[in-house]
């Protein structure tokens, strides 16, 4: 089932539905043909006085998988949540810096936090389907929210999203059943389908397999490989093998700072920083 199309040189075929703003400036570095989808520039984040993310900058290529790794509490989740402006929904939380999506800063005054989240989807650490909704309604929730009433279109998107999350075959006859009736791994794929239904350009995944068993985890990993054909993925993981398996770029964080950001191969074979080397070899303390 695993696809092996992880070459970095691959030129992007997929072009996301452009939103109607024409301010977009495509930042294309000269060194590579691949477009920079997301540019995080000097992002800082706080919980009250606690400085959780300290001046992180990094760029993410379109149709790539980027992994955030680092010890627990180092700010991976917080950084991820800064990207789609979820961080600021927490009481007393504050974020600063720029997150440039297709040339436009999501923190710009003119940009709407809800709109940002429609373009940047999110899958959480613990599966969180809506418990009172059926499988179908869970996937359709975002569509209905955004005013889509066309039943036929909704059904099509639900099917396509469930297929995209490799859940369709398991639930196609139970679409009216409650989403909570599924197993943990299925619930997580349901949440993935719910995010995919919004046709996001970027998908943020926060330790999406930490609550799952190995088989369910490897299903999610396979999906990540397939989905990157269509969108850009950033995945937080504390499982280094997982980072090595699924990602092209890896960012290693420590105490809120970005220590090293390099191709995954280099991070694991030839880390540039001593801290990285210590972390990946399991010698930390």
């Amino acid at each position, binding site marked *: 089932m695993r696809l092996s199309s992880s070459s970095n040189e691959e030129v992007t075929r997929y072009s996301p539905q452009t939103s109607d703003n024409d301010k977009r400036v495509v930042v294309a570095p000269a060194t590579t043909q691949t477009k920079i989808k997301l540019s995080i520039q000097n992002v800082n984040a706080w919980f009250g006085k606690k400085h959780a993310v300290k001046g992180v900058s990094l760029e993410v290529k379109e149709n790539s998988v980027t992994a955030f790794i680092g010890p627990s509490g180092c700010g991976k989740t917080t950084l991820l949540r800064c990207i789609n402006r979820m961080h600021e929904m927490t009481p007393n939380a504050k974020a600063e810096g720029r997150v440039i999506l297709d040339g436009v800063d999501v923190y710009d005054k003119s940009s709407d936090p809800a709109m940002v989240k429609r373009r940047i989807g999110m899958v*959480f650490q613990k599966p969180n389907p809506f418990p009172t909704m059926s499988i179908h309604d869970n996937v359709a929730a975002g569509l209905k929210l955004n005013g889509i009433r066309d039943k036929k279109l909704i059904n099509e998107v639900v099917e396509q999203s469930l297929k995209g999350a490799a859940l369709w075959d398991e639930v196609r006859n139970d679409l009216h059943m409650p989403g909570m*009736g599924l197993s943990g791994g299925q619930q997580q794929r349901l949440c993935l389908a719910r995010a995919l239904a919004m046709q996001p350009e970027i998908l943020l995944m926060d330790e999406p397999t930490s609550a799952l068993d190995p088989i369910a985890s490897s299903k999610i990993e396979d999906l990540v490989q397939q989905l990157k054909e269509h969108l850009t993925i950033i995945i937080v993981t504390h499982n280094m093998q997982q980072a090595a398996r699924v990602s092209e770029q890896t960012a290693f964080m420590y105490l809120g700072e970005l220590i090293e950001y390099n191709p995954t191969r280099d991070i694991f074979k030839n880390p540039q920083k001593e801290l990285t080397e210590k972390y990946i070899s399991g010698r930390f303390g």
Partner: protein
Amino acid sequence: MTSGSVHINTDIKKKVSSFLVGSNKNRRFGDKLFHGLVFGTAAYTLFIIVIVVFSVGAGSIKIFSQEGFIGFVTGTAWNAVEGRESYGALPYIIGTLMSSGIALLIGVPMSMGVAYFLVEMAPSRVSGPLSFIIELLAAVPSIIYGLWALFVFRFLIKDWIETPLYNTLGSYIPFFNQAPFGLDVFTAGIVLAIMIIPIVSSISRDVMKAVPDSQREAAYSLGATRWETSRMAVFPYGKSGLLGASILGFGRAVGETMLVTLIIGNAIGPSAIPTTLFSQSQTLSSLIANEFNEASSDLQLSALIGLGAVLLIITMIINIGARIMVSRMVKVSPGGRE
């Protein structure tokens, strides 16, 4: 992963194992005692229910055999004159349901608004003190609300709400067509609403607070606004709890006695049927409170107990109805697999 075998001191081993064996008996006894106590408390509640139902039933046999149950429930007379005694509960059933209905109609939306504001909107430096005040209000004895309504609030209601309603709508809609007096079902309903708002708000707040943030974030992540998030994640998740809070409020309003006695106008007999919003009326519990001390005959006493039986049945119907509604609404129990 140290090498070398672990040294076991046989003396200590003996002591420890003897202790483990010896203590088991006591622990079993403790277990049994606890079991017995818990069983006893559970049996106690059952006992109380049986006693209450039995006493109310026994006390009201007389009136039910005289008027028939249906006759009593649909009757409108309340005549205590010897030889012509006749009692019916209908006016007070209507009075009870109407005043509580008004309380529910006004009180529940207000309470939901208060709870929503506290949990979803107010910053903690506002919600903390405000929650505290609401807890305080919930602890105010209802008679205080009653006295305040009798001496102050009813005049405000009469001058600012009832009279304008009567003047503008009275000649078109029969329901408003009665010169308001201030002591009537409408005032009673509003004061009951004021009485139930603190407790319903407080419980609803707890229910909304119990909705996990992961649910809110799920909605946010789909691009929901604050309000959409509540509609999508908070209300559905808390549905049964919010319904429960409302039913509790309704139950309080239905059973409230002294407050209602002070402000509902205490009409008796057919005239106690509220034909307009501003009619004087009477509730089941307020009539019991008003007449129990002066009941002149056994039959009248039995009729009053019969009102109690009807009240008991109404509250049971409300509770069972609520349970059915809850189980219909919550098709899914979190974590359940089918």
